[in-house]
């Protein structure tokens, strides 16, 4: 038992120590560009704007964190990018994935694009898998809808990915979803999202349903695999703690608008918008000894 603790501890520390090796590369190609996105809720002939004038872009290998409290419109924004808007919501504006205009796609093209080009990890890991099928079989089906592989090749690739997300591959492959813990299921969901090799990963509150330690490990994993695969990540959260040390850029959303956007480190130290300051203050943090006094001096 002590051994696993030591390992957890080391893993966490390694991630703390590890600086993101690649410097923010302004030359990297744009993966996603969103321009003037508006989303309206249409109910009984009345329409209400949920998201207004949202514009941002993500470059290859970059992580953009979209931060805001519930109801700020961050999840619908993600849903619009993935083409998963529920009925009754209508989006307008332009979105490009590489050079394809997402706003021009029809349902069939969406279907081919989703999963292959855009991977998803949801908050609700319970809903990601059918409870009646073994994990391996579900992943196998998923992979073979996107690529024509033999069963053997596909299995090898899945086992490889399960290893990458830090799970015992053979055992996980043969398990039913209910036999895994929340954190493990979320790892499988991450593997499922990354197996087809998407160029954009949308992580919609992947840590909210997990406890703090498991959540941190999950985020480390996402950051690590992002560095490995070079995909762009849109990370949606309400918890700024997961954003530091991981996301290069940060967009703060409130009541359907982006109120502040910029480099994470700059916003952390010099938040411009009052709401951002409020969010920062709300973040529960464990102050290191000495840090409090240091802050007091600064203020």
């Amino acid at each position: 038992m002590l051994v696993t603790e030591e390992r957890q501890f080391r893993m966490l520390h390694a991630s703390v120590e590890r600086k993101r090796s690649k410097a923010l590369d302004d030359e990297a190609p744009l993966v996603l560009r969103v321009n003037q996105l508006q989303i309206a809720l249409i109910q009984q002939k009345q329409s209400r704007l949920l998201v207004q004038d949202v514009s941002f872009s993500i470059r290859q290998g970059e992580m953009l964190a979209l931060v805001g409290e519930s109801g700020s419109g961050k999840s619908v924004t993600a849903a619009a990018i993935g083409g998963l808007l529920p009925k009754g919501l209508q989006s307008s504006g332009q979105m490009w994935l590489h050079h394809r205009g997402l706003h021009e796609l029809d349902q069939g093209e969406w279907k081919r694009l989703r999963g292959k080009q855009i991977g998803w990890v949801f908050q609700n890991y319970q809903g990601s898998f059918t409870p009646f099928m073994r994990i391996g079989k579900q992943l196998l089906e998923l992979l073979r809808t996107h690529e024509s592989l033999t069963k053997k090749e596909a299995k090898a690739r899945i086992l490889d990915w399960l290893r990458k997300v830090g799970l015992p591959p053979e055992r996980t492959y043969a398990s039913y979803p209910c036999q895994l813990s929340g954190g493990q299921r979320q790892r499988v969901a991450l593997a499922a999202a990354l197996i087809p090799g998407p160029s954009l990963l949308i992580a919609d509150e992947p840590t909210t349903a997990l406890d703090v330690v498991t959540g941190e490990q999950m985020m480390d994993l996402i950051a690590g695999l992002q560095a490995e695969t070079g995909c762009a990540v849109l990370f949606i959260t309400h918890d700024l703690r997961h954003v530091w040390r991981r996301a290069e850029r940060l967009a703060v959303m409130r009541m359907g608008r982006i109120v502040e956007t910029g480099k994470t480190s700059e916003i952390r130290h010099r938040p411009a918008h009052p709401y951002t300051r409020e969010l920062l203050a709300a973040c529960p943090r464990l102050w290191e000894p000495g840090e409090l006094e240091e802050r007091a001096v600064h203020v």
Partner: protein
Amino acid sequence: MKIPLFIFMGMVLYGFFLILAFTGSWLAPNDPLLIQMSERLQPPSFTYPLGTDHLGRCILSRIMAGTHTTLGLSTAVIVAVAVIGVPIGFLSGYKGGRIDAWLMRVADGAGALPEFLVAVAVAGFLGPGLWNVLLAIACVKWIAYARIVRGVVQTEREKEYVLASIVSGSSGWTIIRRHLLRQAASPLAILVAGDIGRTILLLSALSYLGLGAQPPAPEWGAMLNDGRPYFQAAPALMLYPGLCILLVVLACNMVSDGLRDTLDVRSKQRGIEI
């Protein structure tokens, strides 16, 4: 709360027949049992608004008197069944353990028998008659009520609001009264409304077969049977009782379906997650 039109129409229709059930015997223009062979198979007239049947009895009077038997008894039996089934369900769900297992085995056994067959069997044993049929229906129907209540109790009792209620000092009885009964109320209301309709159909069907109400008692199902030989010459004999059955069952189903759609408070919040 605004009552939707659908339920409102059903309730008005049902209420109309329910009032008839209590006042029908007084309001009837003629004696429903009076046989007058000289007046048989009369067309509608001022004295007999819907005409007379094969024994010269006033059809309207018989229908009005029959409302009492069909509708009144069906309603009464369902209410009685609910009064039996609901406490059993609470007992079973709340106590759990051996009482629960025992009660549910009984319910399984009784539930395996279709009520129609039980009614026929009871009629065979105890002889045909309205009360025997009602007894048979009661024997089978209570199970559904006990089951629904038990199900509600079992899903709700582990929820935090029940735990919080225990922690804040509520006794078992208080929890049932304050929380669980409220949770069970809407599925029960839906079931009661639907069951009244189904019981009316069942009662009429059994009477039509001669197992329920015995002649000369006026009952809609029995009236249908009476009119069968004269169907071609005098369709009114079957038309009016049939129409009444149709309308009452329709009313019950409208109320039941309407309740299903509106009573569920939680279904309102089902919308778009933002």
